[in-house]
């Protein structure tokens, strides 16, 4: 494994890039027109179908390829990706995406239809099998399904599996899922979608699960406790074994939210901590590009007792190769096929590239980078010891701080969450940022920390758009170009 994105040395004297700047998209009231505003065309629909089945006309943009290319190239220039600069969004794990994985995803062997017979898609099944077994090892789990198409879908799948397991054990009355107050919003929403009442668990003064409060919250109705570890403050739940015992003694199950698994590679496994179910965010831990909001992929791992309830199909190895099968008590499907195949391929390639040592190095460098960055910024970081992310407390409105950081050419951290920290700046630099980048990030934090609160509200000044009126967007929703006619 080469060292291409590791920078532990204390080399100095390397020059920083100037701050990232997007072209201001307006001068004097101009903006990039919509395609429909550039050239729209209404065509009469001529079809060999009878008229009662067809539309009369279709109105859509009609531009030649050069203009289409220029339009989207211009839009890309008004967008900030990981190759534009650091994106230290806490919990989001925005690390550099190795470009070679796109080449692997473009290989013709990916162009396989899911309804082929097993014997005709051995390459696909081979990769699915290897990846599911690898993830089981990384998670300390007995079985893995790759099917859920995102982290939240993984949560929903895991909860459905837990429900089926409880039902099969005559425990169908269990109606509650316990979620710490600082958990990701998806935990609450997924539990609710699956029909559970959500019981919110307060944190203690150290930012961790309050074991006494958990004891009080756990009852005969408890189906599941959902935990992120390290939690959203970056803190390891040191009482995890006691927590697991409390939940298990009451007949409940323990669910691991894998959003922060990228800090534990080679160091600890959820299965060893007592978790029964977990999801992996492949797009976070294993560096597949986030694509402006997706696609991701959220496989789940489970212990042996829960394996018969996993979604169908699963893949197993036989003497002749690989085959699909339905687990005995499968909950069925959560996606029509296997979710986002290309994300699976890219994550698999990333894992193979790194190997054991490289993966452990990912977590070590991520944790070191977070600690280094925190040591360089002037804002208080109230909770520790943290791992791959930390939550600083701004002494001004965190949202304003974020907008001001934009003027320094960096993407700001996640703001105002978790709420346990006042004016939270939840920061996760990831392992792919060099010391120089971390120093530049710290400089951006610190420059903003010196600003007056009034000046903060005037920012950003140098971005493609100035600060955007969110309230007006919600009050007067205009969600398509049809709603803009006349504007």
């Amino acid at each position, binding site marked *: 494994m080469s060292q291409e994105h590791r920078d532990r040395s204390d080399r100095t004297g390397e020059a920083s890039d100037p701050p990232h700047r997007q072209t201001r998209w307006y001068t004097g009231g101009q903006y990039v027109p919509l395609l429909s505003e550039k050239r729209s065309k209404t065509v009469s629909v001529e079809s060999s179908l009878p008229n009662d089945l067809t539309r009369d006309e279709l109105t859509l943009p009609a531009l030649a390829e050069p203009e289409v290319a220029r339009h989207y190239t211009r839009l890309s220039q008004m967008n*900030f990706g990981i190759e534009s600069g650091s994106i230290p969004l806490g919990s989001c794990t925005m690390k550099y995406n190795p470009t070679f994985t796109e080449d692997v995803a473009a290989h013709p062997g990916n162009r396989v239809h899911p309804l082929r017979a097993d014997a005709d898609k051995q390459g696909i099944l081979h990769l699915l099998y290897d990846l599911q077994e690898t993830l089981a090892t990384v998670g300390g789990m007995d079985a893995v399904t790759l099917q859920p198409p995102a982290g939240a879908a993984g949560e929903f799948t895991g909860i459905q599996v837990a429900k089926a397991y409880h039902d099969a054990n005559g425990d169908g009355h269990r109606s509650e899922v316990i979620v710490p107050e600082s958990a990701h919003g998806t935990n609450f929403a997924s539990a609710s979608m699956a029909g559970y009442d959500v019981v919110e668990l307060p944190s203690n003064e150290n930012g961790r699960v309050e074991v006494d409060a958990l004891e009080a919250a756990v009852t005969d109705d408890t189906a599941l406790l959902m935990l992120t570890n390290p939690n959203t403050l970056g803190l390891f739940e040191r009482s995890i074994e006691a927590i697991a015992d409390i939940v298990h003694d009451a007949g409940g199950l323990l669910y691991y939210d894998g959003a922060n698994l990228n800090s534990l590679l080679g160091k600890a496994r959820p299965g060893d901590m007592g978790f029964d179910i977990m999801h992996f965010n492949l797009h976070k831990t294993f560096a597949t590009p986030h694509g*402006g909001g997706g696609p991701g992929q959220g496989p789940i791992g489970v212990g042996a007792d829960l394996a018969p309830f996993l979604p169908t199909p699963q893949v197993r190895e036989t003497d002749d190769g690989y085959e699909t099968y339905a687990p005995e008590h499968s909950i069925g499907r959560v996606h029509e096929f296997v979710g986002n195949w290309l994300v699976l391929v890219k994550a698999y390639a990333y894992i193979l590239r790194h190997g054991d040592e490289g993966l452990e190095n990912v977590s070590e460098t991520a944790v070191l980078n977070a600690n280094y960055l925190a040591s360089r910024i002037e804002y208080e970081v109230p909770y520790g010891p943290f791992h791959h992310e930390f939550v600083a407390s701004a002494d001004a409105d965190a949202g304003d701080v974020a907008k001001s950081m934009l003027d320094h050419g960096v993407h700001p951290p996640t703001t105002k969450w978790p709420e346990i920290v006042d004016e939270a700046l939840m920061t996760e630099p990831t392992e792919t940022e060099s010391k120089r980048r971390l120093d530049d990030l710290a400089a951006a934090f610190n420059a903003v920390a010196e600003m007056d609160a009034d000046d903060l509200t005037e920012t950003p000044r140098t971005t493609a758009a100035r600060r955007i009126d969110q309230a007006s967007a919600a009050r007067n929703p205009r969600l398509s170009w*049809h709603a803009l006619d006349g504007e």
Partner: protein
Amino acid sequence: MLDAVGVSDPDALFDIPDSVRFDGDYGIDAHSERETRAAVEGILDESADLTEFLGGGHYDHYVPSVVDHLSLRSEFLTSYTQYQPEITQGFLQALFEFQSLVVELTGLGVANCSMYDRATALGEAALLADRVRQSSGETVLVPDDLPDRVRSVLDNYTDGPGIGVDTYPTSEGTVDVDALADRVDDAVSLIYAATPNARGVLEPHLDAVGDLADDHDALFCVGSDAVALSVLEPPESYGADIVVGDAGVLGLPTTYGMGLGLFACREDFLRQVPGRLVGTSEDDAGNRAYTLTLQTREQHIRRERATSNICTNQAWLALRAAIHAAWLGPDGLVDLAEECVTGVREACDRIDALDGFTAPVYDGHHFREALIDTDEPASAVVERCREAGVAVRTVDDGGTERLAVCVTDTNREAVDALIDALAAEREVSAV
């Protein structure tokens, strides 16, 4: 850096009790980039080299080169969700244009940025119906030809709130409107019908289905896709309240079932919509600007009372679909859709002319796909095609095993090979 944080080894920064420390190995060897590519591509090459006529919910159309070249620009590909709209105007505008495309195709007032696939979009439609029509019952009606894969996803989505899912009959390959009229009652919250349906037939009487839904205060959800909707009557015009389906027929070639879930609905349901919405606003300089909006519906704000748990979605695929649609323009979209009509029609004519085949089984106009009757067991035909390098599939059509073929612009030129493979069977049978 180690000095700055006061440790000599990064491992000292891990605050993990010894009792749960992992001291084993994963057993994964590291590889150079070249080795990794060779290894993964070697695995992928283990699949058979077949010409596919499959379909069944995952369709292949030619994706122009410009879609890759533009969407793979790292500013798009490697960006995050647009929580800082001032530096993500480009992606937001692209998503706004995608929403606009879906609004134009469906005729409905609101379209979101994406769902995972057509099956999860249908699941979300059932949940939306349950939220907006709580007074009028909790049963979702789906046609009896709904693919099991889609039904299974729907069953999981409706399990939590206890929504029942029941089927209504089809006959002669399309919705049996009279039987549906007998089945529907005021306990029904949503009626679903797809066009093209699972047999590839364009449903001729969806206006009657819409009327039945209306009569019983149920929502009418239509399933379709972005190419078919380019020529079909906009579902809003015959009473659709929600349209779900696949928009990945644009921008996304065969990729082992990846999808781009399309979701549009009437404007009345705006605050009950699942998923991300992009709207326009103004910035401090008074210029038009785009932003994620109505986020109080979403999980990161509303938590257990959110309209859906969806967070990560299919945004990059929506970008690709928008680029593909822009490249085609309205003329190109209509032409592509028309090719989906004529391609399967011509293939069926040729297959029907072979001894021992009836194609298509059902009357009516087909789109991309059709079912075929065979004198021999369909599975035997599939196996013989496979030996000739052609992939077709069987479907269980109401208890009868039938052959299904799918013809689009990308395999139309290979229909000769399909015909040869089927005809070879006839020769074998004749011996």
